[in-house]
């Protein structure tokens, strides 16, 4: 056996394992993603992850949201029915399966009562759609972002940039040990 073979094999194994691990972790699918805008205030939006609608217990299960530009939108998503859901936001008034148009896409853990925080600030005003990719017919609503863009931003509704996973900020909170949704919120 050639003396170099074992060393080459060792190096090969380490490189292959490391490179694959890195590949598994970089942005899924390598899609283009959207850049977050600046903000000077924040706004909490409570949504319920329930297959009947984001606000399932009211007369308007999928409210149209009106928000201001330069605001950090803090979506507080409370898992309500134990089914798998996602909070997905696309640029434009309609749902789309074209993932390159997705601004935010976060799976919601299925533990009933768990809270998932999804923080995002839009870079541009416009009409957006928020929905759940698992229940695209019953969990879909519109989101208006009002205001004027800063002069530096693009003509298009949103800006492109190469994906960076720090773009949007997700916290998972587990109701049992960390934070339980308020009783009032859970039973609405």
């Amino acid at each position, binding site marked *: 056996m050639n003396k170099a*073979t074992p*060393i080459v094999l060792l190096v*090969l194994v380490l490189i292959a394992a*490391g490179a*694959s691990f890195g590949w*598994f972790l970089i942005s*899924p*699918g390598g899609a283009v993603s959207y850049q977050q805008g600046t903000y000077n205030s924040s706004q909490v939006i409570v949504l319920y992850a329930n297959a009947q609608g984001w606000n399932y217990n009211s007369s308007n299960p999928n409210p149209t949201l009106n928000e201001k530009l330069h605001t950090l939108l803090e979506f507080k998503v409370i898992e309500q029915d134990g089914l798998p859901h996602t909070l997905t936001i696309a640029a434009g008034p309609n749902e789309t399966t074209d*993932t390159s148009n997705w601004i935010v896409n976060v799976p919601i853990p299925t533990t009933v009562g768990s809270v998932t925080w999804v923080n995002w600030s839009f870079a541009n005003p416009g009409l957006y759609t928020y929905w759940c990719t698992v229940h695209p017919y019953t969990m879909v609503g519109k989101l208006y972002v009002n205001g004027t863009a800063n002069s530096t931003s693009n003509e298009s509704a949103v800006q492109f940039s190469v994906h960076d996973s720090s773009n949007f900020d997700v916290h998972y*909170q587990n109701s049992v040990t960390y934070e339980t949704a308020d009783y009032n919120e859970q039973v609405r």
Partner: protein
Amino acid sequence: MGFSFELMVFGSTIAALITMAFLLYYFTADYKRNLLGESASSLTKEQSNLLLTKMRREISFSAFFMDDSKSIGVRYLITSIVLFFIGGLAGIGMRISLWFPNPSFLTPIQYNILLTAHGNIMLYGFAIGMILAFGYYLLPSANKIEKDTLGVVKSIMFWLFLIGSLFIIFSKSTATWYFYYPLVDQLTEAGGGTYSFATLIGVTLILLAVTVSSVIFLKMVFLDRSKSIPLSKISMFSWSIVSTAVLVLTSAPVSMIANGYLIYDLINPIFFQAANGQVLGYAIMFWFWGHPLVYIAILPAFGLIYEMLPKYAGVPIYSYRAGVFSLLLLMIFSAVVWGHHLFNSGLGTIWDLLFSTTSFLVVIPSAMSVFNWIATLWSAKSIKLTVPMLFVLNGIVDFVIGGILGVYLADVGLNAFIHGTYAVTSHFHWIFIGLTAGIGFGAIYILFPTLTGGRTYNVPMAKVHFYLNSVGTIMMSGFWLVGGFAGMPRRVAGYFGIFQTYQDAAAVGGVILGIGFLIFLINFAYSAYLPAKVDVRNPIEDEVQVT
């Protein structure tokens, strides 16, 4: 839809590149086809015997340019070791991320990618690769085969296997190793992953490779075997490969067909639609292969135990006939138990009870093998606790624990509670790490002088590897088991705080395992680097006294 134009361009470019590389390989490397510079089929009988028995194949990268059985075995061995470390790092990554109840350094999507990659690479890349490696490597000498033919076919199948593994790695699917419809066909990040279908293609290529290789194995054992070995005397390892090959041939094609349907459904969804109730149809087709697969992953390990144990116990195996009977019975029974994975899917009570019963019956042949080994140890005058023997003993213990757990899982009532918990994960990691991986390492240690051309491994280091492997399995699978019975769900990136103790202990176990495997690699590289000083023969293939 998901099938965009860029995707097609991307796919065809990759395909063209692979084809070009392949042609380049075949035209430039042709002259090296085999050891003696001639095509294997034109060798005389004496020459090919020489090829197989005298010139032991060593681990070397030139094996990738030679087509004889032993070289093909070496190719699979190298590839499956590399894949083992890729899959293992993914596993340890998941373990570490589960240290805290909230998803820590892995987001749920990243966790799912690692989960799918780990399961698929370990099963299709490592377990199947290892079986093909030992099959190609040991069968020719075990059966003293007279002609080593079909070199080109074996070689092509190897390349398909390698390309399949690359597809699995590159796809970054999140569909888990079940690829259940409709998840696998939802080509989005929150669905099965944008390139989820690439896993299907990769797995199908590997299935093709293992199916064709199985035919070649059967041919080697039954047609090419030397006339000096009657059927009643062929080695236990050959019998284990025979039962594996038959299992592959009866079940792998079903999975290939199902994968084909899934790929067709991407373009024109007609097969596995909820409307005609056929979503469960896919699950059935999958498990028709899925359960045999897990036995395919351990039967050759059984064969290796049958070969290795008597060498260190100093007596022949207690009962050859019972051993063969047990292997063949395992082959038959494991083809009819697949329904135990679908107890909670609504097959119906009668079916559930049927599959529960057949699952209990599997215990009979399994126990026959275990008792056979115990009887062999019992009748031994002195047992030599060398490193390979330690792996064998540990493998037997792990199999007993994992197997008994399987019987618990096969109880329809109990299954409703522990299905989908870490108890299942624990069940199969006992066996996969203890047997599939452990016996694989044991066999590498016993073949070490041959594989490295006359080097010996560093025994203390190898023992450290063994102990870390053993303790790591006990910690990881043991704590998974306790947590599983307490209801700890599997396949999640975060969990309830009450399970943290089990998860953290298991994480420590996982890291211990990882360190052990790294020590194996370093030991291998270090010892093999030193000058050759011992005989290149080994106890499995030749009549040598073990020390």
